[in-house]
């Protein structure tokens, strides 16, 4: 229960930050990708710095998270799918100006056409799951 509330709170803060920075506007993201406004670098940089402080100091200063038994580890692996998948994502990002977090958050700003993109993301992930199952 307390875990659920803190995840919801974290998500609310995250979504508020995305909306404040304008990442819920595909037009603004496209203007970054077309190198007309490099502000997105500050969004990502600011988020990385705060997350880095939490990831580095949290496990050193606290024995365990407030409402759980252990801190998770980043388990990203490197294989050809990591890179091929990233390239396919980049293609979609450049076509639409959408990325997963900001597309989901967009729905809260009344940017309803983005729902098309979110539904398509679920379908794309389904396709990936089916192909991986074979």
């Amino acid at each position, binding site marked *: 229960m307390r875990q659920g509330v803190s995840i919801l709170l974290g998500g609310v803060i995250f979504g508020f930050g995305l909306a404040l920075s304008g990442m819920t506007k595909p037009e603004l993201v496209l203007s970054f990708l077309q190198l007309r406004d490099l502000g997105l670098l500050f969004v990502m940089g600011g988020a990385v710095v705060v997350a880095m402080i939490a990831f580095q100091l949290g496990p050193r200063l606290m024995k365990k998270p407030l409402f759980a038994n252990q801190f998770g580890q980043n388990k990203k692996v490197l294989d050809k799918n990591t890179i091929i998948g990233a390239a396919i994502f980049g293609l979609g990002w450049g076509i639409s100006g959408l990325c997963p*977090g900001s597309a989901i958050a967009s729905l809260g700003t009344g940017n309803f056409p983005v729902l098309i993109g979110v539904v398509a993301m679920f379908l794309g992930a389904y396709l990936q799951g089916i192909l991986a199952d074979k």
Partner: protein
Amino acid sequence: MPLSLFPLGIWHYLVGGLIVGLGVAVIFLSTGIIAGASGVFTSTWSYLSGRKYFHQPEFVSGRVWRLIFSAGLIVGALLFTLLISKSQFVTQVQWWRLALGGLLIGFGTRLSRGCTSGHGICGLASFSLPSLLAVLTFMAVAIITATVVSALGVFP
């Protein structure tokens, strides 16, 4: 050439980014979870599909918190809209670009096991080499793609 690399200023970008990072920090320090956004697109299928792939432990055990996190993203953006901006924004990007882009994004982020939040924010913040390479790849491909799209006369 534009007069500035930051025609809208930098402060709302920087403050927004710091707040996004705070959201990641709140979740990590309270639950130990390293939160990325794209996992929900796979884990939610474990409710609807019997396929083995969607029933791996990481997807079944993560499906509840991922939906809660996604709901939080929507509520947070709604709060910003109601309290601060007080205006709705509706994109002019064509439906076919949202649909095609969305399909590629869903497929690609799940194949790569991360997106702008999982690889971009959380991966870089934990000094992950796979994430760094993923970020450089999707940034480069997206910049080339968006530039080509605009050169083909497709706007916005």
